[in-house]
């Protein structure tokens, strides 16, 4: 078991997410930084879909009740295991009673804490991912709180032995490199000047950003779509533009349908890095295909 001895402000259990229920209005959920989650599960010899803790905003602490192998990744953090600083993407041997303490999230939004065997909460609609809006998945469909006890899956069922280290593609959360997008379904409703404005703008991730959507400030975008456009299905990473308003990017727990025109969609290979942007971080977009 893992005991949450000091809950961070916002942490949930997530795996790779939920498919097959979008027509009931159920979003995909799952870890926002999929790239890091896959790396950690590979590192620990877990199934790629093993559930882990997605931890945001600030520090906290966990205690393990038995020897186990854990690893952290995603956001850059200051973290210790039994008082010793630990490195990300490295298997850490915890003993019974070991304490993992995160004192600070330095850069990025989501720290991932993975454990060999995965976190064994019940599967709901095919996934262990927490969807707080529907109170399903994870631990009783809610964020973790101090005193929670998380069951650990069978480490022997994990597919392979943990690796000593793993090569993950170098990813610098401080780089400021552009996030690549492709044209969205309503790309044509935005004229060339508007596109130029959008692609030249340095946008700021708003405080009003969470697992449902990230609001981006710093540019007002006009378009020719009528206010009465019928709502249509959305997708992960779609950049919606309310008329004259701040763009909103659909994140993992976002609405399954919506009426705002979608100027662009974040490329899958860039979504994890985008998801790690915290409130106040700056972002630019680059279009990966011709404008017309």
């Amino acid at each position, binding site marked *: 078991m893992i005991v949450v001895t000091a809950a961070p402000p916002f942490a949930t259990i997530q795996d790779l997410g939920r498919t097959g229920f979008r027509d*009931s209005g159920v979003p995909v959920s799952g870890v926002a930084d999929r790239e890091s989650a896959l790396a950690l599960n590979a590192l620990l010899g877990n199934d790629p879909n093993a559930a882990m803790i997605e931890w945001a905003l600030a520090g906290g602490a966990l205690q393990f009740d038995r020897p186990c192998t854990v690893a952290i990744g995603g956001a850059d953090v200051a973290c210790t295991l039994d008082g010793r600083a630990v490195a990300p993407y490295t298997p850490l041997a915890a003993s019974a009673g070991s304490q993992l303490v995160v004192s600070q999230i330095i850069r990025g939004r989501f720290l991932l804490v993975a454990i060999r065997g995965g976190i064994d909460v019940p599967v709901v609609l095919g996934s262990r991912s927490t969807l707080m809006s529907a109170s399903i998945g994870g631990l009783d469909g809610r964020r973790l709180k101090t005193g929670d006890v998380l069951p650990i899956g069978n480490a022997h069922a994990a597919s392979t032995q943990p690796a000593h280290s793993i090569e993950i593609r170098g990813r610098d959360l401080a780089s400021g490199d552009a996030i690549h997008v*492709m044209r969205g379904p309503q790309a044509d409703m935005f004229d060339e000047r508007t596109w130029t404005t959008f692609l030249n703008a340095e946008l700021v991730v708003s405080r009003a950003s969470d697992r449902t959507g990230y609001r981006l400030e710093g540019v007002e975008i006009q378009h020719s779509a009528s206010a009465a456009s019928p709502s249509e*299905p959305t*997708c992960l990473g779609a950049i919606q533009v309310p008329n004259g308003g701040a763009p909103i990017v659909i994140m993992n727990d976002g609405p399954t*349908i919506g009426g705002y025109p979608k100027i662009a969609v974040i490329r899958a290979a860039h979504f994890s890095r985008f998801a790690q942007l915290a409130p106040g971080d700056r972002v630019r*977009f680059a279009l990966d295909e011709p404008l017309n």
Partner: protein
Amino acid sequence: MRANSGDGIISLPPTEGFPMITRLGETAVLITFSHTISWDIGVRAREAARCIRSRGLDSITDVVPAYTTLAVYFDGTRTSLTSVVNAIAPIIGDHREQHETPSALIEIPVRYEGPDVAEVARLTGLTPEEVIERHSSRTYRAYACGFAPGFAYLGDLDASLVLPRRATPRVRVPPGSVAIAGAQTAVYPLQTPGGWHLLGTAEVAMFDTNRETPSLIRAGDTVRFIRID
């Protein structure tokens, strides 16, 4: 900033007229049947959805009809945008096997004690009793399901009840709230923010993961509200 590398991007050729097949994202396709909402267009989207589902293609993870569109989501590690388009294009173009399947009738018991009944009466010039009577005597149809888990957009509302949304949305609408806005009505399945006018409370779970389909109402269903005291 303009990037040069178009690696892995697949563009679809523009299509003339409807249905229009476009790319929604890297692993999703959007089919647009019209830009104007009508029940018949919704029927076409749902029938196309049914035909696509009946093919049982494993690599297709979700098929989602909405008012005038249909989205098909697929597993990008198992198939490609081009393969999915090639598989679904003949299906959506073929009307022979498309017909409106009889929809389920969902009856929802409602206590009409919502906080906005009096306000709706004032705004419409009706009595509170007339508001309740006109809302509960009508048979509705579900145009779309989505936005939030279990949320279904029902229409059409009696013309005398059509109002804009509240000027200030509520931060918390209690789960089960029966609400109206524009020409639509809906039941809020879960506690969410919301700007619709609240007329009552449904005495049934709108979203339940123990059901085969967690949403009580699916797009295309027929819905009646049964007034209870």
